[in-house]
């Protein structure tokens, strides 16, 4: 594996940002007022803002989108869309921003809302609430996102899976949510390092201190995490026996017994990924020399 320096993901903490230098970072906040402050602070320390993540407990319509956010890479996680009329008033501005809107699967209406957002040209995605997923609605949204020939913006994680899918390797779509430890590491203000957001929340740390980051590829727990997928192959039943394992990697194993719809959904998504891949091959234009 190529040893790339990880992108650090953390909840905004001024002291922590001040201790970082020449890092690529994903900063999480819920305060829209701090957008510019965070960007300035990150840049002042010669860090590079990979993405600013905003968790908003309200509706998309209630977000105070701002022209000054242009050029800032942002991911906004909201609970719902809110009044359509209010959102439409901000549509032109939203389209001009480098923003992806995520809506939660916990609200069933959000599947339709994401359909609408994508059709309006707003890049968007579903954020999974493992205990609340309507897999049929998810499948409908995926079918639209992957197969529809009408122009529309991207819907994640379907866009990522269809583009990254390669039969000879696993497709790890948790990158869409900054949770793939091969690219991202999560860190708290005390410099505890975790493999993903869940582990950070639960206190499952793999190391502590910014100074250990250069040697993280030799960290025993990090190395173990690279092979964590194999634990599914040590069970008698379960996700390893699913044909779509290679694009889901058992992410919904804990809820499978109660809600087994993930299996058919990911089988259909993989079919979509195959379809997209075949199209790419078919449409591949001849390559001419360039002057």
């Amino acid at each position, binding site marked *: 594996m190529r040893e790339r320096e990880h992108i650090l993901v953390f909840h905004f903490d001024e002291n922590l940002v001040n201790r970082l230098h020449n890092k690529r970072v994903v900063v999480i906040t819920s305060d829209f007022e701090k957008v510019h402050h965070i960007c300035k602070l990150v840049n002042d320390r010669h860090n590079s803002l990979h993405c600013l993540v905003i968790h908003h407990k309200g509706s998309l319509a209630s977000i105070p989108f701002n022209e000054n956010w242009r050029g800032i890479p942002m991911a906004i996680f909201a609970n719902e869309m809110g009044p359509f009329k209010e959102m439409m008033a901000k549509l032109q501005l939203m389209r001009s921003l480098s923003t992806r809107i995520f809506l939660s699967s916990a609200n069933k209406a959000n599947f339709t809302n994401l359909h609408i957002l994508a059709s309006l040209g707003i890049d968007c995605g579903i954020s999974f609430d493992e205990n609340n997923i309507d897999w049929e609605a998810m499948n409908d949204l995926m079918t639209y996102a992957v197969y529809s020939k009408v122009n529309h913006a991207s819907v994640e994680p379907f866009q990522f899976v269809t583009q990254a899918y390669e*039969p*000879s*390797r*696993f497709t790890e779509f948790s990158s869409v949510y900054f949770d793939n430890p091969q690219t991202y590491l999560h860190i708290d203000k005390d410099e505890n390092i975790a493999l993903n957001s869940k582990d950070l929340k639960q206190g499952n740390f793999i190391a502590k201190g910014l100074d250990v980051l250069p040697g993280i590829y030799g960290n025993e727990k990090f190395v173990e995490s690279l*092979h964590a997928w*194999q634990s599914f*192959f*040590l069970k*008698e039943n379960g996700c*390893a*026996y*699913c*044909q779509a*394992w*290679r694009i889901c990697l058992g992410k919904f194993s804990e809820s499978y017994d109660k809600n087994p719809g993930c299996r058919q959904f990911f089988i259909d998504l*993989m079919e979509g990924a*195959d379809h997209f891949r075949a199209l790419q091959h078919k449409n591949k234009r001849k390559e001419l020399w360039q002057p």
Partner: protein
Amino acid sequence: MATIIFKPTEKCNSNCIYCDVVVKKQPKTMSFELLEHIFKNIDEYLKAKPQERIQLVWHGGEPLLLGEDYFLKAAEMQDKYCPETKHRIQHAIQSNLTLLNQNFINIFRRMGIDQIGTSFEPIANMRGPGAKRDSLAYNTQFMKGINLLEQNNIGWGFIYVVTKKALARPLDIFFYLSNLKLTGSFMLNPVLVYGEDKENIGITSEEYADFLGAIFPQWWKYRDRYPIVNPFKMFTENLVENKLTTGCEDTGMCAYGHVYIGPSGEASQCGRAGDWEIISYGNINERSLIDIMQDEQREQFIKRNDVLLAGECKDCPFWEFCHGGCPLDSFIQTKSFMHRTNRCEGKKLFLEKYFFPITGIRLEDKYGKDNKKNN
């Protein structure tokens, strides 16, 4: 290229349900003196045949139980006793990978091994150490083994042995195996039961055909998605690409190409023939490898092709796929090498019931309207 199925040890750290070797109560291991003698013989053989190459397939038991020093010694012996011919010796190894470590890998690299063959079983308590066959312990170690191989860019492929316990869930097993091995290849082989089927694992040819038939539509439809899975790929290549790519048991050409050498130097036709003590070519302590490779008993395997083509397999359109099957299977069933095996029926059934209807490929496409091979 001549193939030596080389079994320097019968010891094994696993108690696989379908293995013939583990039942031996006093498994033997080859001495260094004999190992040295074999390398001298290989050198003599290759000097006598300047165009020939030898593939030495390390088998067991579990060959890694020999220890790192044993392999190191073998590499040194090859350097010492085969200085002019060593570039014509190719090593391969079959291992269960549970004892693999970096030192082994370093030695294997020195021996030119860049691929390791193994086998795997997801169903619990089929493979593993002890009377209860602790498959969790076994598979955990196996996973560590494949991680090491992949870290070191050493290829691996495996055989899955289809037993009665697998018949209820062919697609589950296929998905599991193809998830574990996204690239490269694996093979679905029927279990071979010699003697009494104490574990009740044996399957009929029809059951094997139906097992393959349950998987084949998925593999065929999405074959760009899956690794090379045999026998599917072999049948496809044979029919569509006119490649003769059958396994050793179906080539009809094993007569002078294979030899088995066991831990005491005993020589036989191949691993199965040695394990089942079906045919003996004497002992390499008493005969040279050149003599063993020319043993007159081998001629019966050549003659078998003529006998079958004139009799039981006459006009069979599937001759090229099986050549009457493995002569050893014939011997087990009939106490004679001169019959086709009942495995042929399984292959024929799979091709007729599943392969041809699903692929739309026809035998006529290969042989013409009369469906016969032009011999």
